[in-house]
C-alpha cells in the first residue's frame, strides 16, 4: 500500500467507509485495503470504532469532568503505573500524561456531579502518589474529535448552475 497513513486518516474521519470505497479513494485494490485494516486491528494500531454522540440531545443525564492531577512518582513506580491505577476505574474515559503545570489529565464521566465528586474525593485524591487534584466540570461541548456539535449542516449555497 502506497500510503497507509492516509487509510488511517480516512477511517479516523469516517469509520463507516467500506473497503471498496476506501480502495477507490486511495487508488488501491479492495483486497489490499481490507488486509491492511485487518493487520492494523491485529497489531492494535486500530483500537476500535465508535460513534460520536451528542448526549445533550438525549434524556440521559451525565456529567463530564476534566481533572488536573499532580503526582509524585515514587521509586519503582513511574507515571505509567500510576496512570494505570487511575485509568483502570471504569468511570475514567481518558488519561493523558501532560507537559506543564500538572502531570495527568483525567477525564471522567459520571451520572451526577455528586458521583464525580465522590470519585475524586474517595478514589483519586487519596491515592498515595497523588499530590493534588483540580476538578473542572465540562459545561458544554462545542467540538469533540474534530466533530462540531451544532453543525450548520444546511447547505447555504443558493446558485445551482455555475
Amino acid at each position, binding site marked *: 500500500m502506497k500510503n497507509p497513513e492516509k487509510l488511517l486518516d*480516512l477511517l479516523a474521519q469516517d469509520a463507516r467507509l467500506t473497503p471498496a470505497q476506501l480502495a*477507490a*479513494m*486511495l487508488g488501491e485494490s479492495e483486497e489490499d485495503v481490507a488486509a491492511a485494516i485487518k493487520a492494523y486491528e491485529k497489531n492494535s494500531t486500530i483500537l476500535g470504532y465508535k460513534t460520536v454522540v451528542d448526549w445533550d440531545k438525549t434524556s440521559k443525564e451525565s456529567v463530564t469532568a476534566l481533572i488536573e492531577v499532580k503526582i509524585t512518582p515514587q521509586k519503582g513506580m513511574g507515571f505509567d503505573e500510576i496512570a494505570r491505577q487511575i485509568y483502570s476505574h471504569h468511570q475514567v474515559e481518558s488519561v493523558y500524561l501532560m507537559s506543564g503545570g500538572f502531570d495527568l489529565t483525567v477525564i471522567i464521566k459520571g451520572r451526577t456531579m455528586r458521583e464525580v465528586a465522590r470519585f475524586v474525593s474517595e478514589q483519586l485524591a487519596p491515592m498515595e502518589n497523588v499530590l493534588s487534584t483540580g476538578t473542572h466540570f465540562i459545561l458544554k461541548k462545542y467540538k469533540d474529535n474534530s466533530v462540531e456539535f451544532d453543525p450548520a449542516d444546511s*447547505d447555504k*449555497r443558493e446558485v*445551482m*448552475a455555475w
Partner: protein
Amino acid sequence: MVNYEQILSARVKEVQPSGIRRFFELAAKMPHAISLGVGEPDFETPWQIRRAGIQSLEKGQTFYTSNWGLAELRNQIAALVRRKYRLCYDADKEILVTVGGSEAIDNTIRAIVNVGDEVLIPEPSFVCYKPLTQMAGGVPVPLPTRAEDQFKLTADSLRAAITPRTKLLILPYPNNPTGAIMTRDELQAIATVIKDTNIIVLSDEIYNSLTYGPDRHVCFAELDGMKERTIVVDGFSKSYAMTGWRLGWAMGPKELMRHICKIHQFGIMSAPTTAQFAGIEAIRTGEDDIERMREQYDLRRRYLLGELRSMGLECFEPQGAFYMFPSIESTGLSSDEFCERLLHEQEVAVIPGSAFGESGEGHVRISYSYSMNHLREACRRMRKFLQTLQAEK
C-alpha cells in the same frame, strides 16, 4: 400599453436564459431532494481570510479603491503568478482586479470583439461565454469536444474552425463541466495553430488550483509567444472558496489591459474593497488551505468515480475542477430525461450535459463539491435509479 418587446435591445432578446433554471426551480420545491448540482466549493472561506475582511471593515476601509484594484493586492497577484508560472506581469499596468472571473471574461470579450467577429468556444463549457459574446455583438462559434479526446480541444478542430473573422479563442481549462485539463504538450499544439494568426486567447483558468494529476497546471501564457496574445482570467472563488466575495482578475499585455480597464472603470469603478483586503490575506496565507481543500476534493473525486463506474456508467477520469461528466447514453435516455426522472424518482438533482452546449448531450454533470455523507446518500439513490432503468429494459 408599453410594448416591451419592441423596446428591448435585440441583442439581449436573442440571449436565451440558462436552461438549468427550470430544473433548479423543480428541485427547490422538493424538500427531500438532494443536489449534486452546485458549482461552487462547499467549504466556507478559511477563517483567517474572513477575519482580514472583517478587520478591514473595523478599520473603516469602506472606500472605493483604485480602478485597477488595491496596489498591494495587485503586487500579491503578480508575486503569486511569478511563483507559480514564472511569468512576469506589471502590477500597475497588466493586472486588473475584477468582480469575480465573470466580469473579467465579460470585459475581455467586450474589449476585443467587434460586431460580427467570431469567438471560438470549446464546448461543453461554462454557460457564460456564448451569451456574453452575443451581447457584445460577436458570433459565438462552438468547438465541440468529445469524450474520446477526454473533452480536450484538439489542434485539428481548432484549425478547421478558424476563419478570417475569428477574433478570439476561449480556452476554458480546467473545464467546467467536464473536469478536463490540458497538458503542456496539448496546449503547445493549440499555441502552434494560434501563433501565425491574429487571434487573441482568453484563457479562463479559474480552476487552476484544482488539478489532481501528477503535473501542475500550465498557464497558457507560459507557452512561447503566447503571453503577448493571451488574457488570463483567474480569481479567488474556486481556489480559496471565496465565491460570494466576488473577486477575480484579468492579466495580459498592457496594450489590451488599458482598454479592458476602461470597461471596468465606467461600469464597475472598483471591485468590492472588503473582498480585496480579504484577497490579500488569501494569497499571503491561503496556500495550505488550498491544499487541504484540494485533498478533500481528490478523495471525493476518486470515491465518486469508483461509485459511478460500479453503477455501470461510463465516465472518463476528470483531472481538474470538481465535476464528473459521465455518459448516460447506455440508459437510452436523453440527458434532460435522465435528469428529470432522477429528480422525480429518487430526488437527486444533477445537471443535463446539454445545458453546457450541444456536445454535452448524452452526459450529465455531477458536482463532488459535497461532504462524503452527502455523496454517499446521493450515490445510493442514483444506484437505485439506474437499477430501475435496467429493470425496465
